[in-house]
């Protein structure tokens, strides 16, 4: 009894048909992952920071800490 003829053509095409969709899916997943782990949190962090930001309070805290040279702490 003879063996069935093995597949001898289209092997690379078959490999590409298998791997290319995975490649594109992985690439898009990486982009989406970066967007939602880095890009969006950073935008939100800046928005949240300035939403509650009190410039006068922060300035006074920095002034009392002595980091400015043009404005000395109020005790000096």
């Amino acid at each position: 009894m003879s063996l069935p003829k093995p597949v001898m053509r289209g092997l690379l095409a078959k490999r590409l048909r298998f791997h290319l969709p995975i490649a594109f899916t992985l690439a898009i997943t990486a982009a989406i992952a970066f967007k939602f782990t880095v890009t969006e949190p950073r935008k939100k962090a800046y928005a949240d920071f300035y939403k509650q930001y009190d410039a006068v309070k922060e300035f006074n805290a920095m002034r009392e800490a002595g980091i400015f040279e043009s404005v000395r702490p109020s005790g000096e």
Partner: protein
Amino acid sequence: MAHPSQLGFQDAASPVMEELLHFHDHTLMIVFLISTLVLYIIVAMVTTKLTNKFILDSQEIEIIWTLLPALILILIALPSLRILYLMDEINDPHLTIKAMGHQWYWSYEYTDYEDLGFDSYMIPTQDLTPGQFRLLETDHRMVIPVESPVRVLVSADDVLHSWAVPSLGIKMDAVPGRLNQTAFITSRPGVFYGQCSEICGANHSFMPIVVEAVPLEHFENWSSLMLEDA
């Protein structure tokens, strides 16, 4: 200022720098997309002995790998041009300061109302007080009012220098005989550091820039004091 082992940009202290940060994130996302795709394809191609020896052309794939990169480039170019025009908007500055590069220090001139000018030398390491930053501190800082549009005219006295403050998103070449203009608004009060960004000789690394943003009344007090001392 930068901190040790820092990889990303410094925290933004101006609206333009915030936009640049978000643009960088957007572009880096595209870079990761392309890099993942290419790396996967490379690994898939080197882990097989299969090759197509008879392929001559393929219109379909040529169209795909022309249109897709073109689309990606458009997706990068549109936000880039938006920021470029944002940086050039007429912003009606409240204050104009001239920053002159010398070997090896910066000098600042506030000549809108009175003639105020001073030099800004780096504080040598041996003269630093505790809490000060090595190679970044200067004896006189460029003080500006916070949340006010400021125009800086940058030039140089001798060789090329470059006036850069990363957290404000500014870098402008100081060219002898040329006046370059840049403008910015600080979003919050604080002290922002930069360094000369164009090789200018032996002490190129030792002519830093320090911008101090304080409320207007304190800026006015400071400028009055500086004029008295001059």
